């Protein structure tokens, strides 16, 4: 029996991460310098926070393609608040962002769990509806950099720890804390286990008395709240909020990160550690493309290829029967 922590899929993702970094580092030594490593680290927090939520959704056999719009919407809500009430405590702004996300995630949740509409249809609809809403609440105007307080942008530039010239930014610390909390709750809390039980076999879970509708609602609402937090971090990291670009296309990157981290796309299994590794891989690939001077037009192709590869690996694993449900 192998120890649990080297369970196949995460190991594969970790190996992939090392390979990407070695390959890019050999081709362009600048890649392994602190500045590039820092940009990789800055890539991870948003992806990780949203990815943890997306993972729970995919575990329940669903999908949420509206995450990018929810991040944008929450970032915009925070931006508007910062503009209209500049002196407010940052904690209030964070709360506003998270509540915005929670509200719109809950709408997704109600439509999926209680109205019985397939997740892809609900979130495809809200992907565009929420994006439209961003333009409505912002009157199509950008929140400029001068409205984002330095106290917030510092979260991305400063951090508690510096290792070898690489700053571990606060937003990463926040994301890791969220991920650690999530990792604990999906493994050890009753609700966490119910999510996996539901994903492994919805009918059996229902018969065992698990409140399946509440579980389904919960994962979408939770993902919304996490998108809300990510929206706050978005404002911190980029220092401005543009209605059309904030969170635009994030859903693809997040889904790519989640599936490359070994989350089973047909539901029932997935780990937070896998998601973290998946986020690292995508961050590493993205910064590698930039450092190697490969046009950023290739990024979309990379996401598509990554999702497809992960999907194919899943299929192969399932066919050979080596995949074990966790």
């Amino acid at each position, binding site marked *: 029996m192998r120890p649990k922590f080297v369970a196949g899929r995460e190991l594969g993702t970790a190996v992939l991460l090392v390979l990407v970094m070695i390959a890019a580092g050999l081709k362009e030594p600048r890649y392994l310098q602190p500045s590039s490593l820092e940009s990789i680290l800055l890539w991870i927090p948003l992806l990780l926070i949203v990815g943890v939520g997306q993972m729970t959704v995919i575990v329940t056999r669903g999908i949420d393609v509206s995450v990018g719009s929810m991040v944008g919407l929450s970032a915009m809500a925070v931006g508007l608040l910062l503009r209209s009430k500049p002196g407010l405590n940052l904690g209030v702004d964070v709360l506003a962002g998270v509540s915005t996300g929670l509200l719109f995630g809950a709408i997704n949740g109600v439509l999926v769990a209680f109205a019985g509409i397939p997740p892809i249809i609900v979130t495809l609809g809200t992907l*565009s509806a929420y994006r439209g809403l961003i333009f409505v609440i912002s009157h199509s105007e950008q929140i400029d950099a001068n409205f984002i307080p330095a106290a917030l942008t510092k979260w991305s530039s400063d951090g508690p720890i510096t290792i070898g010239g690489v700053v571990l930014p606060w937003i990463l610390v926040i994301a890791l804390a969220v991920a650690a909390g999530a990792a604990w709750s999906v493994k050890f809390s009753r609700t966490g286990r119910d999510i996996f039980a539901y994903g492994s076999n919805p009918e059996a879970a229902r018969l065992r008395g698990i409140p399946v509708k509440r579980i389904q609602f919960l994962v979408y609402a939770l993902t919304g709240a996490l998108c809300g937090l990510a929206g706050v971090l978005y404002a911190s990291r980029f220092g401005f909020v543009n209605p059309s670009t904030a969170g635009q296309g994030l859903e693809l990157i997040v889904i790519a990160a989640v599936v490359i981290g070994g989350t089973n796309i047909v539901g029932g299994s997935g780990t937070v550690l896998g998601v973290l590794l998946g986020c690292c891989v995508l961050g590493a690939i993205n910064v590698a493309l930039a450092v190697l001077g490969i046009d950023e*037009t290739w990024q*979309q192709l990379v996401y598509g*290829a990554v999702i497809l590869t992960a*999907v194919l690996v899943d299929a192969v694993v399932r066919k050979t029967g080596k995949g074990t449900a966790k």
Partner: protein
Amino acid sequence: MKKLLARREIVPAVLILLALLVGGVTQGHKFLDLHYLLDSTSLYVEGGLLAIGMTLIIISGQIDLSVASNLALVACVSAKLTEAHYSPAIAILAGLALGTGLGWLNGVLVARLQLPSFMVTLAGLAGYRGIAQAMMGSKSAKVPDKLVGIDMAYVPHTPIPLPLAVLIVVAVVTGLILHRTVAGRWIYAVGTNAKASLYSAVPVARVTTGVFIVTGFMAGLAGLIINSRLGVARYDDAPGLELDVITAVVLGGTSIAGGKGSILGTMLALLLVALIRIQMGLANVTAEYQLLVIGVLLVLAVLATNITERLVAKRAMHNSR
């Protein structure tokens, strides 16, 4: 009368009348000008072709999110070919073959490897457009003059633009296949209960692959038409069109759970979406607000069908007692 009201197409049909009425009142004669309306249809033909394929896919219980990306890739590749001095005939054939091939790829992954279609085609959505983007960058490829202007051509002696005629022919042919042939019934059977179909000797995998292939072909055709209409091909052609397409199909009464739906319903709903978009355009509603409306419309459409279905089922149970 009762039978007519029970038909799934009735909802979009009523809404179309409503949209026409609202448009007529608020926009006046311009909106009700037949030539203006007919000419406006050209903008929606590409979406219409995709919607016909999507109807088959959703009836069979699957979904295809990659249609617009497939269209864009076909448009770019065929324009690039003519730029590289291949003959237009080759560019057209290659475009159709590429679209069909990508549809086949989706179909094989879904049907043979048993992968969820939303995930496979999400990869396609990113991947196909990604290839187009990697190939084109921010530049556009010019379509040769000979192939430009299909929307300026009309069916002889009528005010019907050529793209609309193409759409109608494709819709009628697909409708006949869907509603009048064994293959068509198989699509419904697979969508209603794939396992039961398999046990009834329906070639489930072939049917599933088939509907994706048809949709891929439609995307190819639509890619060529958009080239001819715009005169240039860009990687970001038809952005987000999959949303309009799925909205139209669902609005037309096709059940998202599979097994139910019709080409007529899709076509009526497409007309409705087009009318709404034309009206919003005339009323200077910006693209972003239109996005909001279409997104809400999609969710409401599914919600409405779900609720009516529950009511109908309840009544049926009540009557049978």
